[in-house]
Every structure is written in C-alpha cells, then in structure tokens.
C-alpha cells in the first residue's frame, strides 16, 4: 500500500493546463470587460478560499469535539487548507480592481453619498487591505501550526502534539469566528454598499463549511477509488453524509431566515437586495440556488441506504460544486451587472482556479504520509463502525 500520494506528471500537466486557461480567460476578460473579469477573480478566489477555510474548520472541529472517525484522512483537510496563502496573494491583487468592484472605492463616492461617507472610516482602501493582511496572517499562522503539529506527531508520537493541536484548534475557531465574519462583510457584502444584513457573516461561514466538507468528501472518495484509504467504509460515508445533510439544513435555514425576515418586514433599504434578484433574469438562479444547495442534498441523503452509498455521496458532492458556484455568483454578480452574464470568462476563470487549487492541494498532500501514524484516534477511524 502506498503511504504517500505521488504527484504524477499527468496530474501536473492537467493542473497547469487549467491554470493557463484561467489566465487566458482573465486576460480576455480584462481586455473586453474588466469589471466582469475582476468579479470572476473575486468569485473564484473566494470560492476556493471558503472551501479551504471550511476544511480547516472541519479539522479544528474534529479536535475540539474529540471526533475519531476522521483521523485517518486528516491529511486531506490539511492539504486543502494550504490554499489559504495562495488565496491571500490573489486577494491582494484585487487592489487593482477595486474601482471596478466596489462602489465605495470610487473616487469621490463619499462626497455625494452620505451612507458611503458614514461607512468611510471602515470601508476605505488602506484599511480594507490592512484587514486582509490581518485575516490572512492569522489564518496562515494557525493552519500552519496545526499542520506542523500533525507532522511532528508522526515523527515523535505521544500525546504532546495532540494536546497542542486541541488547544490551537480552539484558538483558531475563536479567531475564525471574528475574522471570517468581517472578511465576508468586506469582500462580499460591501459590494452592495447600502445593503446590510447581520446574519450575512454566519451564512457565508456556513456556506464555506458546507462546501468545504462536500469537497473533502469528494476528494477522499476519489482518493479511495484510486487505491488510497482502503479502509474507507460505509460508516465513514454515513458520517460524511451526516455532515452534508446537517449543513444543507443549516444552509437552508440561514437562507430562509435572511430572506423571510427581509421579505416580511419589507423595508426598502433591505428588500432592494432581493428585488434585484427577482428581476432581470436572476430569478431562475435564485431558485436553482435553493434546489442545488438545499433541496437535492436534503432529499437525496435522507434515506438511510443512500447516505452510506459511496456513489451517491460522491454525486451529491459534485452537485454541491455547482451549487457553491451558483451561490457565490448570485451573491456577487447582481451588484456588478444588471443582467446575468455567463461565458468563456466565467468557465475559464473557474477552471483556472480549480487547477490552481488542485495543484496546491496535490503538492501539499504529497509532502507527508497519507495516514497520520501516531494519531491517538487512528484506530477508531480505521475500523470505524456505526450501527
């Protein structure tokens, strides 16, 4: 049995190919419609960042809840969170597209608009980037430490690194709550600078966690199908399904909470957000979003037979890849364009980021043993069995 994942030539070529398509799409977009190009850059970077954050949160959650079943494949979320530094660089690149994306960043916007003037102490370009640096440094330091402890545990054994990981997981979750909230306000909510909703941060966090777990399940299943993680059994599948199922409910709950309360109270400053979404061709996406992210996973995984079936879980995760994209699209694009746009730029940018993510992921995964050798819960995970 291979203890390490090897990054073969084909994998690398495909990844680089995808990245080239992505760059081509961005350059093409930049020349024809720069606003759309920047919006795609933001969308896809946020997309894969939220998946990486979701995976790292999953990992931290396993420590603080003393969960054993996932110990076997914990190197996968570790590798997924290694995308965070890459996302940091791309997020800093947004600097050159601020004028296209954010209304509040327009020169002189604050002078004519009292709401923007009110928010200026928070929403201004220098502070925006200072915050980006703070968020990413915290996330990078903590995910790096968790990764380091995990690798040292392999070498030295004992409970020392496990206990350290537990402590740092708590700190990470604590900091993530604050920083990711503000980050989602900054990057996504401030696109509609007049609009606000205080469930927004939580909703974005859950979306990231949800799709991070779905992606994690998909990757673990794909690795299993390629001969790794031979111990993966139907009980693991059921636990993955439970996560996806529970998070689909939570996603639907937050979606509904925000929508229903804004619709019910009908305050113009707030309903404008959904009014936009219900006109100019966005409405179909609004419903597709609900179907992909809540209805299908919820209905499919409800049955006891389905939730242990590897193929079904795999396909639900694949549905959610599209679901997450639509969800992000409908969060970002109504603020950017009047009618929905979809074409080479959208497809290319997504493929490019997918390639980049896969490359970073594969590279990190190949650096350490696939199965952590001295994890105290390893046996629980290898012989995981649920009634």
């Amino acid at each position, binding site marked *: 049995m291979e203890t390490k994942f090897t990054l073969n030539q084909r994998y690398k070529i495909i990844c680089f190919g995808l990245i080239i398509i992505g760059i081509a799409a961005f350059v093409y977009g930049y020349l024809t419609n720069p606003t759309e190009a920047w919006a795609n850059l933001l969308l896809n970077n946020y997309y894969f960042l939220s998946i990486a954050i979701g995976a790292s949160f999953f990992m931290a959650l396993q420590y*603080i*809840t*003393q969960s*054993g079943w996932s110990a076997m494949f914990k190197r996968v979320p570790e590798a997924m969170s290694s995308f965070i530094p890459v996302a940091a660089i791309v997020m800093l690149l947004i600097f050159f597209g601020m004028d296209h994306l954010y209304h509040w960043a327009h020169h002189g916007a604050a002078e004519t608009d*009292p*709401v923007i003037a*009110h*928010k200026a102490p*928070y929403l201004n370009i220098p502070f925006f980037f200072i915050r980006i640096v703070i968020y990413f440094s915290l996330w990078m330091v903590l995910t790096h430490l968790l990764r380091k402890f995990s690798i040292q545990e392999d070498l030295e054994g004992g*409970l020392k690194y*496990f206990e350290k990981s537990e402590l740092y997981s708590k700190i990470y*979750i*604590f900091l993530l*709550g*604050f920083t990711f*909230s503000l980050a989602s*306000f900054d990057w996504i909510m401030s696109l509609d600078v007049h609009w*606000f*909703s*205080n*469930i*927004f*941060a*939580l909703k974005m966090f859950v979306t990231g966690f949800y799709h991070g777990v779905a992606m994690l399940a998909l990757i673990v299943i794909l690795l299993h199908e390629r001969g790794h993680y031979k111990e993966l059994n139907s009980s693991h599948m059921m636990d993955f399904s*439970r996560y996806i199922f*529970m998070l689909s409910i939570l996603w639907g*709950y*937050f979606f509904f*909470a*925000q929508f*229903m*309360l*804004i619709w*019910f*109270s009908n*305050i113009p*400053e707030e309903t404008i957000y959904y009014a936009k979404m219900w006109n100019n061709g966005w409405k179909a996406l609004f419903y597709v979003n609900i179907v992909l992210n809540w209805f299908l996973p919820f209905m499919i995984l409800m049955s006891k037979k389905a939730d242990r079936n590897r193929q079904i879980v795999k396909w639900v995760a694949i549905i959610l890849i599209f679901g997450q994209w639509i969800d992000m699209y409908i969060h970002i694009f109504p603020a950017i364009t009047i009618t929905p746009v979809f074409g080479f730029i959208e497809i290319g940018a997504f493929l490019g980021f997918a390639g980049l993510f896969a490359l970073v992921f594969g590279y990190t995964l190949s650096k350490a043993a696939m199965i952590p050798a001295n994890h*105290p*819960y390893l*046996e*629980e995970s290898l*012989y995981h069995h*649920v009634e």
Partner: protein
Amino acid sequence: MYKTEIRGPLVLGDKTYGRISQDITAPIDRRAPVWWKAAMAVSLLAATFGVIAMYVTVRYGIGTWNVNNSVAWGWEIINFVWWIGIGHAGTAFSIFLLILRQKWRTSINRAAEAMTVFAVMCAAIYPAIHMGRVWLAFYIFPYPNTRGPLWVNFNSPLFWDFIAISAYLLISASFWYFGMVPDFATIRDKTTSKFKKAIYGFFAFGWTGSSKEWLRYEALSYVLGGIAAVLVVSVHSIVSTDFASSVIPGWHATLFPPYFVVGAIFSGFAMVMTLMIIIRKAYSFQDYITDSHLNAIAKILIFVSLIMGTAYGTEVFMSWYSGNEYEMFTFFKNRITGDYSFQFWAMVTCNAIIPQLFWFKKVRKNLTIAFIISLIINVGMWYERFNIVVTSLAKDYLPSSWTTYSPTWVEIGLYIGTLGIFGIGVLFFFKFIPMIAISEVKGVLNAGKTVHKQH
C-alpha cells in the same frame, strides 16, 4: 475503540450492572431528605405567590402590570422567552449529542429532558395569561367556529409560536416519557412496596425487556428524536420572529433566529450544569456524573459563550454599519449608554465575559465556581431578553411616547411563581423518577474497556 485515557471515563469505579440499578434507584426508595423537604416548602411558597399574582391578573386585568402603550411587552415576555430558552437544552442534549455520538450524554440526558418539560410548562403560562381574558385562550386554535367565520391571523408570528410550542411540548414530553419506560420497569421489578409496584408498573406499559421491545423502542427514539431535533431549532427561531419580523429598531435583525437558538441552548446548558452539580452533590452520584461530564458541559459553554459574544459584537457593529439613525440610537444611546446601560452591560458581562473563565482547567474542576458561573449565565440570559424586549420598546420612533418600565409586584410574583413551579417539578423528579437513564448508562459501562469483567 473508545479511548478512556484521552476522552475521560464515563462511569467510575468497578460497577456491575446490578449495582448501577441499585445506585440510581436508591433515592426513590429512601425517605425524602431534609433538604428536599425544605426546598419543597420554599418552592410551594413561591408557587403560591405566583398563584396569587395570577389571580390578581385574571381578576383585575392586565392593568395590574406596569406594561403600557409603548412598552406593551414587559416581564411576561422576557420570562416566557427565558423559560423557553431553558427548555431547549434537554432536547439539544438528547438529540444533538446522540447524533454526534457523544457517549457522555447518557448520565445527563434524563435530567435535561425533565427540565425541558417543566421549563416549557412554565413558559406556556405567560402567553396564556398575557391574553388578558385567559378563559378565551382557546380562540388561538384555528378551527371552523361559530364566531362568524373568524380565524386566527395565520400571518402572525405569535400564532406560529403557539403551534411551535405546543408541538415542542408534546414531542419533548413523549420523548422524555418513552425514554423512561425501561427504567420504570426496573423499579417495578426491584421495589418491595406493592403500591409502588402498581404505580410504576402502570407507567412501564408492561415492559419486559425482550429484544423485540428494545428494537421498537430504539426505532421510536430515533423517530421522536428526529422530529424533536427539528422542533428544537424551529421553536426558538419562531420565538425570534416575534421580534425580528417587526420594523422596530433593535428587533428587526436577520441574525435573530440562530442567535435565539444559540442563546437558548446556552441558558439551557447552564441550567443543566446547575442541576447536575446539585444532583451529584445531593445524591453522591460522583461515579456517574464524573468530572469529565462537567468538564464537557463547561467546554460547550465556553464555545457557545464565544458565539454569543460574536453575535453581540455583530449586532452593535451592524447597527453602526447600517448607517440607520434609529438602529444607531437604539444601540448606542439606549443600550450601551442611557437608561438601560446596566442591563446591557450585565448581559455582556454574564454571557460573554464571565464564562470565559472556563478556559482555565482549575475553574472547570472547581464545582463551586462552576455552579456560580452556571447561575450567572442564566441571570445574563435574563438580562439579554430584558435588553431586547424593553429597550427597543421604551424609546422607539416617536419621542413623545417614550417611557420607562419597571415591573409591579404582580409581575414579579408571576416570575417567582414560575420559579416555584419549576422547583416543584424538579424536586418531584428527584424523588420519583430515576435521575439518570439506567439502561443507557449500562450501555456505555464497558466503553473503552478491552477486558469485560462479567459475561
């Protein structure tokens, strides 16, 4: 595969199955201790006060309270939300921890569920009495009637509330009761008193403990558990829409549904901790309610307290970010500062700051401090509801109708009365029902042990 050395033991000492039944049912056969009688007397006194307050309310009307046109909701709604919140932990414990396969739930779920039922009953008193004409309370049922074709307002969150709470009470009471059936059978088989045999035998539904019965029992637990898991979230979400679907500053917040649910779980867990420490101390159940159980509750409390802190922060930040002058006034002039700043800061201190002491192992281990913190959390959660209900109403859009609010003795009496009723319920539970789920604790007795002591 349960690793005791990492996760902490579930049952201490070398217990046999017989010994567990004996230990847990012992208080039922013993005479009630003095402290129990004293506590019962106090609870009865408090409940009597409550009944008098109820009588005054019904006899003379809502005018005996200090609620007015501006502050139309006062202590009664605060206490209603507070009790409903406490009534959440039972189901949260039983279902969420069951789904998450947290084995330590077994010693605690029975007491938590009992508490749920009593707390929800206390909560239900308030909306009924708040209607003014309590004898017409049945009007809230939507049914074809002779009052003209008069229907309830289906668009009203208050009506959704009624549906959600009655469903929750029904399901959580059934869940609690069916969970007790095997334990009632154990008492029936062990007791020497004929009277007890008859009573517990009646409630045990002729349980024999055959494998077929266990199969059905487990299927039923999962079905009821599944329904209750949805209800536990929906009840408090709907309670939150009572506020959030309005356009009152400080109430209209999209964050409210999850914020209320988390707050409810917070106060409920704190109350579970209070009760578990009492049970452990009063009945010497250290072997079943171990340090690691209380440790786990304390850890959940820190985590939830951080969520509460983040939610408070988000609300304040958003009120500024929104740029809405009314929101800003409510938060900055009428909560953080102003007439009700004490209540605001009491809420923040009790809920977001003091529970952080649980980060220290010494605090988690010291049961006296843990007990005090668990009480402080419930005080803090009361202040949270006060903050929401009163501050937003006292000073709303129209300065000419600004007012202040403080309760009358009748309102205080109602609150003390429900505390008494809750106390009576809990004390009866201590005396007549096995406080720990015997059959479930037996199920985890050998967790983590490789060599079985008896076969």
